[in-house]
């Protein structure tokens, strides 16, 4: 079920404060953040976030298409290195 419209999109408060500050000063610095669950709002366009993926911060440059998604969607948490090589058991089956 979706979030109630009444509340508006969820953005981490500290993150929001940082964005508003950047808007006022007009400077563009990479914001390091752990708030993967924050929704991307129009004010964030053009900014770059370093979104934590559990191990390190992945730089995410925000474009118009990303609005409404959450920051975490762009910072992948899993690394797939392919399946393991087959065991003897599996080979003998054929």
């Amino acid at each position: 079920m979706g979030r109630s419209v009444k509340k508006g999109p969820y953005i981490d408060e500290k993150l929001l404060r940082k964005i508003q500050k950047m808007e006022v000063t007009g400077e563009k610095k990479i914001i390091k953040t752990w708030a993967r669950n924050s929704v991307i709002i129009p004010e964030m366009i053009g900014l770059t976030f370093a979104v934590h993926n559990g191990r390190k911060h992945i730089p995410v440059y925000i474009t118009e298409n990303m609005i409404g998604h959450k920051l975490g969607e762009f910072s992948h948490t899993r690394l797939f290195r392919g399946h393991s090589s087959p065991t003897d058991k599996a080979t003998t089956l054929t």
Partner: protein
Amino acid sequence: MVRLVGVDLPANKNVQVALTYIFGIGSSLSQEIIAKTSIDPHQKVKDLTEADIVAIREALKGYLVEGDLRRETTISVKRLMETGTYRGSRHRKGLPARGQRTRTNARTKRGKRRTVGLGKGKVEEKKE
């Protein structure tokens, strides 16, 4: 034969059911559309008058249906893939995008069973 937005409606079905043969119209939308016209939903398609068909065609406007709907979905999937979302990567890999399990099942998305590995996998891994 009745033709609406490029689809032939089955002649021997009730109007309400026949409309669901259009991509993008399920039973609830079908009911909604018929309610806009003054057609009996249980009437067969073959018994529809010319005026009825025009009325349905008119009521269908404003709904995203068939080709337009298909185009819209591919565009939104493409957007997901281009922006580098997790869901986009799942689409690219042909795996379910909404957190379903893939250890078993997920056959609709992954297609027919095919065995992976068995010797071949080892060679491929070494190349990387």
